[in-house]
């Protein structure tokens, strides 16, 4: 059975370590396999490793038992040499995956089916970092001169960037970048019998334009698309041959506020920063009508959020995620109390091609802020212009979305809460800086007592929520549109793994 698959973008390269990016990994997941993998529900399950965990005697060393009897598409056998090779390769200079592995000190292969990874301190979430780390055949790499990772920025094209030889359920039969990639079920796959594997052929076409993608699904030219625009879900669902399935995505959307600077550049208040006043932030948080955004802008395809953390993440609680009441009068009172009863003006920076209905959400927010006297000028731009502004601290009020591939709060803190320094806080555009919190965040990395670690996480979240560091909007919902003959659940990371798909 052939499955025609379309999504917005194409994989950028077939070299599994050259890019750390959604569509690239999505294709790689069909061809290559990591040691362990998240199944379609987000559960971590064995792939090329069957067992893993830190050694009881030394928390700095993790041991992985490898699966036996696995072969590559070209028939070569899989063993620990390959894992050793792949991990080293992924740590090399040109690899885009090396950040995920920077806690690793040494990798050892005591025998053909065992791997030991030593980290430079206890790393409780090491396994989380390996779910997208694909294993290549050392022999194949050497034979084809692709031991080195493709130097992406240097513009190298290598054998590995155009060809693939993995242990995965599908092997590559042809590829024209940005237009068509064809895959075929791999006869020698170890998981035969274990997984449905009902799809025998995959034709993958990127279709950038959402309307065209939907049209292609409606016309039956493709069987499976990702990223269905929310307004078209009804139309797709109504089609008797098609259906839509959805699941919460591992991504939360929120606004950031510059609360640290003495004065804002985009406002009309001289010499003071209205956002520095917690009452203003509180008022703004209350002014946002998340219900309305969900109903009208998102057409029920979102989950209103009270915290800047997707529900999958370790540290999430229902209490944190309760949404603030939408009380305009109270909000107005707070603003007046803060001394801005006559209102003020500020600019909201917003992407218009990054998140689902990002611009519309911002527009809605403009109206809501207007109701409590804050005049917001909306500056909506493509992502390539929007995100650098956050990075360069050029914006006072901005939209940001955050996904957490490690499913752990530390990841959020590191990037969004920690003071902006060389290696941490790179996405923290709030100018918030609290040495206590920073210290707590740093401590998380080496805390092996998970209970203690969770407690620290909760403490940090309490502080973040109390400060109203971010104004959360909602958690995105993923939608997959597909022909009725396809049966699957939605992967929270938006990576379909076709070996799990069944057909009616």
């Amino acid at each position, binding site marked *: 059975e052939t499955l025609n698959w379309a999504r917005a973008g194409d994989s950028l390269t077939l070299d599994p370590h050259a890019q750390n990016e959604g569509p690239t990994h999505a294709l790689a997941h069909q061809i290559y396999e990591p040691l362990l993998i998240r199944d379609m529900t987000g559960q971590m399950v064995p792939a090329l490793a069957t067992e893993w965990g830190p050694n009881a005697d030394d928390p700095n060393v993790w041991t992985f038992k490898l699966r036996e009897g696995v072969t590559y598409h070209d028939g070569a056998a899989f063993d620990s040499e390959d894992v050793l090779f792949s991990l080293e390769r992924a740590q090399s200079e040109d690899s885009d995956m090396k950040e995920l592995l920077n806690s690793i000190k040494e990798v050892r292969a005591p025998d053909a089916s065992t791997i030991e990874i030593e980290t430079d301190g206890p790393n409780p979430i090491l396994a989380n970092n390996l779910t997208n780390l694909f294993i290549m055949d050392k022999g194949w790499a050497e034979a084809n001169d692709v031991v080195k990772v493709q130097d992406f920025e240097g513009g190298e094209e290598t054998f590995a960037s155009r060809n693939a030889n993995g242990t995965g359920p599908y092997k590559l039969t042809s590829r024209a970048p940005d237009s068509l990639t064809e895959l075929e079920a791999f006869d020698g796959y170890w998981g035969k019998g274990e997984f449905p594997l009902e799809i025998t052929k995959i034709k993958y076409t990127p279709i950038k334009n959402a309307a065209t993608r939907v*049209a292609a699904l409606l016309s039956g030219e493709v069987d499976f698309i990702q990223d269905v625009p929310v307004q078209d879900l009804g139309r797709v669902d109504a089609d008797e041959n098609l259906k839509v399935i959805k699941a919460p995505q591992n991504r939360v959307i929120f606004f950031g506020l510059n609360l640290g600077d003495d004065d804002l550049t985009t406002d*009309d208040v001289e010499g003071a920063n209205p956002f520095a006043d917690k009452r203003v932030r509180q008022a703004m948080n209350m002014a946002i009508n998340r219900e309305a955004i969900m109903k009208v802008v998102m057409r029920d395809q979102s989950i209103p959020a009270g915290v800047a953390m997707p529900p999958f993440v370790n540290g999430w609680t229902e209490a944190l995620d309760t949404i603030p009441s939408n009380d305009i009068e109270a909000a107005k009172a707070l603003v007046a109390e803060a001394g801005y009863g006559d209102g003020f003006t500020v600019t909201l920076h917003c992407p218009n091609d990054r998140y689902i209905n990002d611009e519309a959400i911002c527009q809605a927010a403009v109206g809501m802020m207007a109701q409590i006297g804050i005049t917001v000028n909306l500056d909506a731009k493509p992502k390539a212009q929007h995100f650098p502004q956050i990075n360069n601290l050029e914006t006072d009020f901005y939209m940001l979305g955050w996904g957490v591939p490690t499913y752990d709060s530390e990841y959020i803190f590191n990037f969004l809460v920690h003071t902006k320094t060389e290696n941490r806080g790179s996405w923290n555009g709030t100018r918030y800086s609290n040495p206590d919190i920073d210290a707590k965040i740093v401590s998380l990395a080496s805390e092996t007592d998970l209970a203690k670690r969770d407690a620290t996480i909760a403490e940090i979240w309490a502080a973040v929520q109390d400060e109203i560091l971010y104004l959360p909007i909602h958690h995105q919902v993923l939608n997959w549109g597909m022909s009725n003959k396809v049966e699957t659940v939605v992967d929270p990371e938006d990576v379909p793994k076709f070996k799990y798909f069944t057909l009616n």
Partner: protein
Amino acid sequence: MDSVKRAFDSDLAWSFRHSPVAILSATVALLLILAAVCAPLIAPYNPFDPASLNLMNGFSRPMEPNAFTGDSFLLGTDDQGRDVLSTILYGMRISLFVGFAAVVFAMIIGVVAGLVAAYAGGRVDAIIMRIADVQLTFPSILVAMLIFGIAKGFTPVHLRDQMAIWVLIISIGLSDWVQFARVVRGAALVEKSKEYVEAAILIGRGPIAIIFRHILPNVLSPVLVIATISLALAIIAEATLSFLGVGAPPTRPSLGTLIRIGQGYLFSGEWWILLFPSLTLLLLALSVNLLGDWLRDALNPKLGD
């Protein structure tokens, strides 16, 4: 008074009075322009005032009460709960201004450049036409981003919104002038070799008068064709550029932006968001083009039939 009478008596006015199509399309165009100018007076709502919007009014069907709020809108509302009718009226202000100004700007630069290039020839021609080649290489998106980026450096924050409009006009105009310039140059090269130009030189006409009084009227037909046909394009271009973040903010949608928003609802059943603004643009483009057709014929004495 006298000049009014003379104007009324002119061939152009006469031909206008005798062309039903011209009268009809002029009326339509004028009504649209008037409606845009008077938008604050005639629009039932002010869609550009965010405080007056209620998001829950979003996607109201035309003339049906909204499921949440019970409000009813003549032409329905868009995704933000803006009254489509009022948004069209307000949006036309931006679209018409940007569209007309950009086309006129492009036309003036293009026609002057083309005429000068053709008439002067030689090095002047080469320079102008090579500048045109450079210009052709850059689509309006890039030009707009460049101008916007540069202009941003010079304008204070509170003037940015006003500036955005001018950036749009200049960028669209700049990417359109070459078409005028090259067409005018081509036509003028032919005209220039004709005897009436030689006659005008002998009379003592200077180059400027020859270019504008003699050659220009004779190359005006293609200019009018391109200008009228470009108007709708410029209005749409404005929407594209605004989407790229160089134009009017999305909270103040122009006609083009409204159409762009509406396009998203093509499959989903909210047809009114797309249909009404598109019809308005169509009507505008149609009337301007028909008016252009009439003007072209009226300016051509030989077609007096």
